[in-house]
């Protein structure tokens, strides 16, 4: 009986290893190739930082990177505030399944549908498209993600803490600042990090609502890889992977955001 159990576990573990190979093989390959002097995927020309140098001189890409930081930073700030308020409202002030479902919509709606809807809307308003139109668009789904994560955090702690504070004479605002906010801060940070990552990486909606000559990083990468393999993208991938993996590990350490990862 016991040996049979062990056998099954082993087959599952082999499966697990294969899945991790599938998930990480392509990523590791890109990292290795980024140091290949030849820039070819099939022949090793020795270790080199040549493609990183190439990248540093690619001003279009650097500008796109800065654009993405602006879009992601702006949309994260706004959605962290609005999303947190919304989370508190949905968790404490109004209990409604209909509202819950409504706030869930931006997370599940196919991005192409939201993209064409927003493009139509902006052009009806004769808005000039630019970084800010992407930012406005990204806030839509970022609000939903922040609200979802902050709500999880809110549902963990006991509302009687807030009641106690108010019974002891603290105003609503003081209670929020002294009790609620510190308790949900890890949730807000986790939500903001998620929002930033999604916004920084978002391609479809940005592609539709970007102004001419102001691409975000994903738009720039898209135009580079559309026509096949370019070695400096490997170097860029490595840098992006390194930044996102480090920031996620740091965030996990800081806030113990286990539920999010």
């Amino acid at each position, binding site marked *: 009986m016991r040996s049979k159990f062990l056998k099954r*576990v082993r087959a*599952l*573990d082999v*499966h*697990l290893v294969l*899945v991790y190979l*599938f*998930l990480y093989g*392509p*990523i590791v*390959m*890109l990292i290795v190739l980024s140091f290949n002097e030849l820039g070819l*995927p*099939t022949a090793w020309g020795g270790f080199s930082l040549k493609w990183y140098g190439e990248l540093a001189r690619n001003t279009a890409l650097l500008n796109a990177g800065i654009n993405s930081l602006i879009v992601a930073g702006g949309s994260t700030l706004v959605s962290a*505030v*609005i999303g947190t*308020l*919304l989370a*508190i409202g*949905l968790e*404490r*002030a*109004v209990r409604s399944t209909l*509202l819950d479902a*409504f*706030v869930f919509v*931006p997370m*599940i*709606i*196919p*991005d*192409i*549908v*939201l993209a*064409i*809807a927003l*493009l*139509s*809307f902006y052009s009806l308003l004769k808005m000039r498209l630019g970084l800010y139109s992407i930012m*406005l668009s990204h*806030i*839509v789904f970022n609000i939903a993600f922040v609200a979802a994560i902050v709500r999880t955090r809110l549902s963990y702690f006991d509302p009687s803490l807030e009641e106690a504070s108010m019974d002891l004479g603290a105003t609503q605002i003081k209670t929020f600042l002294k009790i609620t906010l510190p308790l949900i801060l890890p949730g807000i940070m986790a939500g903001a990090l998620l929002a930033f*990552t999604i916004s920084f*990486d978002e391609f*479809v909606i940005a592609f*539709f609502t970007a102004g001419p000559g102001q691409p975000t990083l*994903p738009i720039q*990468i*898209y135009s580079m*890889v559309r026509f*096949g*393999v370019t070695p400096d*993208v490997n170097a*860029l*991938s490595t840098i*992006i992977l390194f930044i*996102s*993996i480090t920031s*996620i590990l740091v965030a996990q350490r800081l806030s113990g955001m286990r539920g999010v*990862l």
Partner: protein
Amino acid sequence: MKKFTQQLVLLGPGLAWLVVFLVIPLVLILSYSFFRRGPYGGVVYEFTLKNYKQLFSPLVLRVFLTSLRIAVITTGLALLIGYPTAYAIATAAPQWRTTLLGLVALPFWTSYLIRTYAWIVLLNREGVINHFLMRLGIIHEPLGLLYNEFAIIIGLLYGYLPFMILPLYSSIERLNPELREAAADLGAPPLKTFFTVTLPLTLQGVIAGSIFVFVPSLGNFVVPELLGGGRRLMIGNLIQNRFLKARDWPSGAAMAFGVMSIVLILLLLQAWATNRLQEGGANAE
């Protein structure tokens, strides 16, 4: 009154944002889908059902069916691969679970475009896989691995497999292992235990994961564009084409609502199934 002010401050900004940047734009393209296209893009405000009739033209219908087929195959494969993965993680030693799960979620935090690009490097004619197969003497001519339906499915599976594993994990982890043991003690063989106990009790995770994979696969346009080479058009490509190239917004809008209605039907089915499952669970207790 005070209560109302509080609700307004908390819910007002968020709900207002969603109304302005989600509801109004959606209503706008819904109305566009009933109008005629303008000669130079835009719309002419003249009612027509032409855009919806066109959804049933052979070309559009074929693209819809191709997209559905690709999304169904991707979801099926994700389930076949994801279930044992989630099961293995959920039954691993407790101190390992968080790490193992984190490793599944980690790729999600890196650029989706770059992860898709990696498959161009792997699959193209001069790519890594062809190179190694030829080196090993298994093939003598490079295989056309890229720019076909196979490549699209691999790309989608690669991108969305974590979306399947995470909800599956949480439903399997909640499962009481004693139930399985009881079934085994009563003489049920492992496969029977799986199909009569484990699977039905984790069905909610199966449904949630399937929707998380199916929906973004169905409307995808990046993966078919990069890995499908545009030859195998999916519905996302067609919508993009109608909007940005053909400048036929009403027809693109109608297609978008075609996709939306499929998604909506799935979500309603999910809500119904979840209700049924929860009722069933309550009755069992």
